[in-house]
């Protein structure tokens, strides 16, 4: 039960229930699909990129609490980040959810994202946490096809 509480933290449940930036962006510079065929998580991620800076991220779609909260928190945290900052954060988040990083040592970089540390105890759920991140990361690298974490 303790591991469960660590997975479904208050902040994750909150973002699942009331996802931030959960809307279509009409003036997006990039629109990508995130899809996990195994569990049916399916999101469209919208981005407005201005030169080197991510101005705005929003998303729409449906999926499990972990994938939705992750997409929601990502959309909030990406606002105003440069591409190299996104790169750094993506690396940190990836290591956090795969258990390679201790949250309490990286709070200053990760902020609220440390809530996802509990995912590392549930290997089957890592791909849920990372789905939106992979999609955004690939889109910034110029890959625009549908991203799948399966």
């Amino acid at each position, binding site marked *: 039960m303790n591991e*469960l509480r660590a997975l479904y933290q208050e902040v994750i*449940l909150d973002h699942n*229930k009331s996802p931030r930036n959960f809307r279509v962006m009409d003036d997006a510079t990039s629109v990508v699909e995130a899809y996990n065929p195994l*569990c049916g998580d399916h999101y469209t991620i919208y981005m407005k990129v201005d030169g080197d800076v991510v101005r705005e991220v929003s998303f729409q779609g449906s*999926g*499990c*609490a972990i994938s*939705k909260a992750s997409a929601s928190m990502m959309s909030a945290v990406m606002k105003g980040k440069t591409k190299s900052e996104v790169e750094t954060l993506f690396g940190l988040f990836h290591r956090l959810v795969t258990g390679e990083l201790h949250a309490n040592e990286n709070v200053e970089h990760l902020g609220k994202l440390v809530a996802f540390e509990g995912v590392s105890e549930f290997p089957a759920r890592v791909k849920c946490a990372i789905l939106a991140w992979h999609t955004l990361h690939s889109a910034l690298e110029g890959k625009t096809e549908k991203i799948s974490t399966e």
Partner: protein
Amino acid sequence: MSSQRQPASILEPRRTFDVERVRKDFPVLGTFVNKHPLVYLDNAATSQKPQSVINALSDFYEEYNSNIHRGVHYLSQKATDAYELARIKTQEYIGAERPEEIIFTRGTTEAVNLVAQTFGKKQVGKGDEILVTALEHHSNIVPWQMLCEDRGASLKVVPMTDDGELDLDAFEHLLNPKTRLLAMTHVSNALGTVNPVKAMIAAAHQSGIPVLIDGAQAIPHLDVNVKDLGCDFYAFSGHKMFGPTGIGVLYGRKQLLERMPPYQGGGDMIKSVSFEKTTYAELPNKFEAGTPNISGGIAFGAAIDYLNAMDRNSAHEHESSLLEYATTQLASIRGLQIIGKAREKVGVLSFVLENVHPHDIGTILDSEGIAIRTGHHCAQPIMTRLGIPATARASFAFYNTFEEVDMLVGGIYRVIEVFGR
């Protein structure tokens, strides 16, 4: 919540099946998962194996491992006899007329592909139609789509109702002179619907259309007799009926199998080979190229022995009572919706919970040792038709208990507790 834990009294008289004794035959049922006794409710994905099946596998490798159909030595003969005996057991179990009508495959998927690649390629041409239903597993959709693409044919689909039953009026209208085959499931893996296959086979035959039945989900729960059903092909998997993985069956009527070209080329499927011309072996070897899953076939025979030795009628009654009980109990949970309300169902209870994704249900239940399946169950068209991305699915076998249903109910309340905070 304590009232949830007791089966309704009307079910009491039917609880004659000695489930505790049966459970002792299945070693894995005694294991612990996440510090809880395993509650295995994912039987539609694969069933657990009795000790006798496990023994049959190890006995083969410990005592008489050998290749079949080729050696003159003692072990090869013994292995061949055991493998061929499994074929005869299968023939008798499903009421086929002859043992050579039983083709061993890797599973249901390969059995369907075999028919698509042989019967299909020979019988299906440009403008023809293959008829499937809205309730199919991907393995009875994709092989036909591939065939249709290859041959310039088209795939037609018998629609279903919101309750998960096939629309039989629409079915009658879809049968036409261009239809080359009806390929349909006996029981839906996602919803548990039992389709009226016998009547549908008869209707198809009236129009001269052969029928393939995907029996993967039916054969663990129903007594299947292919002669009585009248089907031309019946495909199923060993691992869903308490046998090992990697062994399955294609039953085919002899007249049809004989007219079909071979599936794969290689050893065992030939009569004679020269660089100018090869003549193919008789049935069933024509369709069984290469060294087969010998131990799997023999252990599959042991699974059939196990099923034959039990009182299957009372096992089936026990399963029906379980499903009925689980349906009543789950339906009483606020915010829970059962998906698939066909009048005739077996083995499967699919559901969704308000504001909780099935994947999260699966994780929380797993933390209590309860194994269910979540997702689209390899039946995406059903999910699309019902307008849901996924379901949680509990699926039962005769070794499941009423107490396990109660634990499932308790687990679902835990899900609600976690998400309701």
